[in-house]
């Protein structure tokens, strides 16, 4: 019992929220491109470049807000390059996305060398981190549970508020409708006179905006430093969640929370002597299994049809609903 209470406690939920937020932000960004019919594998790179420029901007301007703006701007530049190549020049989106990821990795290392004369990481040097938000009155009202809603860095709130916001955008605004139409039925969009190119550009830039916020959160909010490759696959995790969720904000949230929870839980299990290799793989396995189950019903048409055809061919369910019933009714 005592063991359970050292694992399952308020701190676990707080840790879940902390680990979920960066993936959620970047996955919500990717939701725009997914909905608009672009497969954006370049999230990781946009996040990384934003993390680097956020630190750089924070040092230059001496303020965390300045860092945030410059970080997001860098991600937007990457998003724009992606958009120009993929949307205007119709380059292969996977190739461009991967190339930009590699570019981000190499560019941050090179720039770090050029600007700071070093490799590895940038710590201290006047980086200003984002302040923690303490909600007034939370402590009086909730006591020890106040940490559930108060004391996070601002972008964590942004991440969670963005979920219903995106639902509203997709459901209630013209832009959201356009993005969905362009993604689901580009021919219909064309017939309606919607500029596919324009809508996809907007989606790609909105994606850059949120991925940039995610990156800035990594280097100024979550912790206050930059290190090579510090996004550590969070962008790729977001891509996986997007594939299974189809970009639906609530499902994205569910996927990210599940991953964040499994991650936080696994970190706590290590102290009980489970081997780290096994425990560290758990969150990925859990998240992927759950997402797979979640998306099983909504599996792509071609998989559904293939399975149906195979079942018919193997006559596991030999179309019994039609053939045996019909004659018996008549006779």
């Amino acid at each position, binding site marked *: 019992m005592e063991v359970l209470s*050292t694992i399952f*406690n308020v*701190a676990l939920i707080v*840790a879940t929220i*902390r*680990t979920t937020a*960066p993936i959620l932000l970047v996955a919500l960004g990717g939701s725009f491109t997914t909905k608009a019919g672009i497969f954006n594998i370049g999230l990781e790179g946009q996040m990384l470049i934003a993390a680097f420029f956020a630190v750089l901007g924070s040092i230059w301007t001496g303020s965390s807000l300045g860092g945030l703006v410059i970080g997001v701007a860098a991600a937007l530049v990457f998003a724009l390059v992606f958009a120009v190549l993929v949307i205007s020049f119709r380059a292969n989106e996977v190739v461009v996305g991967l190339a930009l990821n590699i570019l981000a990795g*190499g560019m941050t*290392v*090179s720039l770090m*060398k050029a600007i*700071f*004369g*070093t*490799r*590895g*990481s940038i*710590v*201290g040097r006047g980086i200003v981190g984002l302040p923690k938000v303490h909600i007034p009155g939370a402590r009086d009202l909730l006591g020890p549970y106040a940490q559930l809603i108060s004391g996070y860095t601002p972008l964590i709130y942004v991440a969670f508020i963005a979920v219903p916001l995106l639902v509203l955008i997709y459901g209630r605004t013209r832009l959201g409708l356009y993005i969905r139409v362009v993604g689901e039925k580009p021919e219909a969009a064309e017939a309606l006179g919607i500029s596919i190119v324009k809508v996809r550009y907007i989606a790609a830039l909105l994606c850059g905006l949120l991925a940039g916020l995610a990156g800035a959160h*990594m280097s100024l909010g*979550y*912790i*206050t*430093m930059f*290190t*090579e*490759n*510090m996004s*550590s696959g969070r962008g790729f995790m977001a891509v996986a969640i997007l594939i299974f969720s189809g970009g639906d904000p609530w499902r994205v949230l569910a996927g990210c929370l599940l991953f964040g929870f499994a*991650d*936080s839980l696994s*970190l*706590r299990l*290590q*102290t009980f002597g489970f*081997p*780290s*290799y096994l425990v*560290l793989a758990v969150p990925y396995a859990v998240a992927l299994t759950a997402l797979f189950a979640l998306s099983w019903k909504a599996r792509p048409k071609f998989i559904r049809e293939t399975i149906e055809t195979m079942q018919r061919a193997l006559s596991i369910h030999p179309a019994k609903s039609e053939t045996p019933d019909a004659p018996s009714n008549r006779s």
Partner: protein
Amino acid sequence: MKNFTQFLAAGVVLAASAMPSFAADKVSVAAISGYFAQGFGVSIVEGLNKAKADFGIDLKLVDTGNRALDYEEQFGNLAKSGEYDLIFVMGWELVDALQKVSAAYPNQRFVFIDGVLDSDKIVYASFAEEQGSFIAGALAALVENLGPEFDKIGDGKAIGFVGGRDIPVIRNFLGGYEQGAKYAVPDVKVNSVFAGTFDDPAKGSELAMALYGQGTDIVYNVAGPTGEGVMQASAAADKYSLGVDVDMCASAPGNVLASMLKRGDIAVYSIIKDEVEGKPAKPGVRTFDLASGGVEVKLCEDVASKLPAEIPAKLEEIRKEVVDGKIQIVKAK
């Protein structure tokens, strides 16, 4: 006439100053790395410069930058002229190039700093990490043992460890740390976790937060940039952390107890000193330990001033026992 004597004198001086290089007994050293401006690399440059000042050696520093494609070429350029007695190499990304060039120029002596590779032609400067970690573990256990009377310490009697990956090198740190802790305070608990990565400081921070939440008050990080997240978490949770490799007191002032230093400067200085004194470095492993000052635990001033005086005294006592061989530390394999 006067001019002529001056000319002669100048000639003599010139000849005299040129003499040592002709005699070929002047030691010439090159060092190559991408990390000279940072942390551990800085201490190596300090050691090299000190050796240059003390022994008048020829020194050439080569910064690899990040031109990963021509590492081999850069090594080759240094090795092919044969003018350097020793070439110091630091950084794991250079290992492939080092091994190839070392095979191509068998007469060139390379010194690989902070690690041991397969090749038996290279000199390895290695650090007795288990000894330094032993002292770090003893310190953490002694401070934890002070209990709630001491600032930021609870009554959990538990200390922690965050490793990068679960690999033998890191296990060696952990082994020393655990042995030191148990030696100083036999009933202290050591909670060890691994991040699985060296470049995810956010994960390091999360791991440390989990440890602090489970009643661990002091966490030792051996995780590179991931460990920097541990240091920052100690400030966020207002607990203690222990740094590694370099002096990390500034990472979280007031929350860093001490750092286990690997003295790269002492390692390169000693190797060059022996070279100058006619004891050339031989291929194989040379370990810098507590006795030679190659590893040490440096307390952070701001916290150390609050510690009861018997703790530093006890640490020094333990250090002497390790140096004298009275304490045998088991190395992790």
